């Protein structure tokens, strides 16, 4: 290594000046690398933004990053499988674990009936002031208002359900469900708000009431179905998860979002794989140009390579020089490509309207506005792949140059 350090100055000068011997070829190659790197990062940011949106939507529908519930609740989400409202050590842990927000909720199957129609629904009893951070429903209210307190007597339903029930804001509907003794509990609610979900399917399913109102209706005062915890970022909830898990009684079950919904977890895990595959595919296209450039550059310098061999440059140093030439080309291309990517992605981070294809996006669980997400990880990945694969693809031409017969090379004009 010491030898390589001593020779770096010599090798660098040769590599740098050789790079600019044929300006046009170097500029064309730099253009190809820059556009390739830009495409890698830009498309990755779009994909990442889309998948982030789909994941965040999916997590809002679960809802929450972490859920605590009765061990049987996910299989049988009835009021029988309720848990006590948090108290004691668990309450302290929830308040001190660093969650962005936590809240309790009641969730159970029910039937809603208007004067004309009836439907099966998910009846959700919420703490209204926490709901903005948990499901985002308050922001999706189209007409009317969201619930205002835990004792609110109103009901919030989706626009599609209102259409199915042939009802509207201000009308009364009857909600029926079972209490823990399997007796029918029912009461009338006035519709105080109608929401429009980003995923239309949810509008027919989820109906929101105040938590305390449902506890009273179902005769389960002091008990809830779930404790929902939201962290700062869905990607980084393991610390929060561990802290809360230490404090929950053995009779309760705690699950992070990726264990609750394996589809979301798979999407999350596959994204990194998609990014890597995408980056490699673009690089493969680039590599043909890179190898061709190097081969041409070497072909034009056969005589000179023979000369530096004759002067006593070891074959390893010739490989080093050609690889450094390739690395310089890649680094300049990466610099331009990264700059282009940042300049084009940053202005789009406030949202890119894709309403023309919104229906298709909605089917995949994404909204009609795409927020490209430029992450350091994706940039580092694209840059690392380009440098490593670029150097690997340059090894063969460099090795062939180092293996040239000096006499034959010197006789080449």
């Amino acid at each position, binding site marked *: 290594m010491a*030898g390589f350090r*001593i*020779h770096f*100055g*010599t090798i660098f*000068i*040769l590599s740098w*000046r*050789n790079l600019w*011997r044929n300006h046009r070829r170097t500029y064309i190659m730099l253009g190809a690398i820059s556009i390739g790197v830009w495409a890698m990062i830009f498309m990755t940011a779009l994909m990442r933004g889309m998948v982030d949106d789909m994941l965040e939507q999916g997590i809002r529908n679960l809802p929450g990053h972490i859920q605590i519930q009765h061990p049987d609740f996910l299989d049988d989400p009835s009021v029988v499988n309720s848990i006590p409202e948090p108290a004691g050590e668990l309450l302290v842990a929830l308040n001190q674990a660093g969650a962005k927000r936590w809240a309790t909720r009641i969730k159970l199957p029910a039937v809603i009936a208007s004067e004309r129609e009836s439907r099966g629904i998910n009846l959700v009893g919420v703490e209204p002031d926490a709901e903005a951070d948990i499901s985002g429903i308050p922001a999706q209210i189209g007409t009317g208002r969201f619930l205002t307190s835990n004792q609110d007597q109103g009901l919030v339903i989706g626009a599609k359900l209102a259409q199915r029930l042939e009802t509207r804001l201000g009308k009364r509907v009857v909600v029926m469900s079972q209490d823990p003794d399997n007796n029918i509990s029912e009461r009338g609610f006035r519709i105080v708000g109608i929401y429009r979900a980003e995923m239309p399917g949810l509008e027919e399913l989820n109906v929101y009431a105040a938590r305390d109102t449902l506890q009273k209706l179902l005769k389960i005062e002091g008990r809830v179905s779930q404790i929902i915890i939201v962290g700062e970022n869905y990607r980084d909830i393991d610390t929060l998860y561990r802290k809360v898990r230490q404090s929950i009684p053995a009779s309760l079950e705690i699950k992070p979002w990726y264990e609750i919904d394996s589809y979301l977890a798979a999407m999350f895990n596959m994204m990194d794989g998609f990014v890597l595959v995408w980056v490699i595919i673009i690089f493969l296209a680039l590599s043909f140009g890179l190898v061709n450039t190097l081969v041409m550059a070497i072909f034009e310098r056969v*005589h*000179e390579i023979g*000369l*530096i*061999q*004759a*002067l*006593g*440059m*070891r*074959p*390893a*140093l010739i490989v080093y020089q050609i690889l450094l030439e390739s690395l310089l080309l890649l680094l300049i291309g990466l610099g331009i490509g990264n700059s282009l990517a940042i300049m084009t992605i940053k202005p789009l981070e406030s949202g890119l309207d894709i309403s023309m294809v919104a229906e298709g996006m909605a089917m995949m669980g994404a909204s009609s506005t795409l927020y490209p997400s430029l992450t350091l990880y994706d940039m580092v990945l694209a840059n690392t792949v380009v440098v490593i694969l670029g150097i690997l693809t340059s090894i063969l031409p460099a090795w062939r140059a180092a293996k040239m*017969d*000096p*006499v034959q090379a*010197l006789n080449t004009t």
Partner: protein
Amino acid sequence: MSAIHCHQLCKTFTQGDEVITGLDHVDITIEEGEFVCLSGPSGSGKTTLLNAIGGLDTPDSGEIRMGDIRIDQLNRGSLADMRLHHIGFVFQAYNLIPVLSAQENVEFVMQVQGVAAEKRARKSVEILKEVGLQGMEDRRPAHLSGGQQQRVAVARAIVSQPDLVLADEPTANLDSVAADHLMGLFSELNEHHRITFVIATHDKRVMSYARRLIKMQDGKIISDEAQ
């Protein structure tokens, strides 16, 4: 590094179906500090012998020794090291690195040898002055005449004071004044620094500088005389 000994050196080349004899059982010893000219018609084996001694080409059979080192048995890396530290080359076609200036070309070998930058710069400026290229240190080869380029190549070959300088038709592209100047420089270096010179040439004026003249034909040494 001391004398060069070649023993029963053979080398053939294939050109299509034809086998050409480059060296045919050549035996030769060149002592340290000698000034030797290899002469003979084209294809007589002068360049092949120079390339073999310089480790640029390997013989088919026979031995080449430089002091205790068997050159014909060294690997590519060791041959490169030997050339770097012990041999200076001057070629017919000036053979400078086009992307480097005159001074950088002269410094190149010292750079690869790992000589400190300050020493390199001082020695390269001195040697360029010695070969009459003062003030042209920053010119690239494309901006130097043929004679000037050859003088840069000579400066590069001798700047690190090698034990041996191998020159292949060094005056072929020079006018008579430049050729005389170059040969005068070679003689001076040979006398004052005891650098061994082996020069392959057709040029009678070059031969007149030699103290030993070896004539070759068809890959064989046909005469070997002191002058």
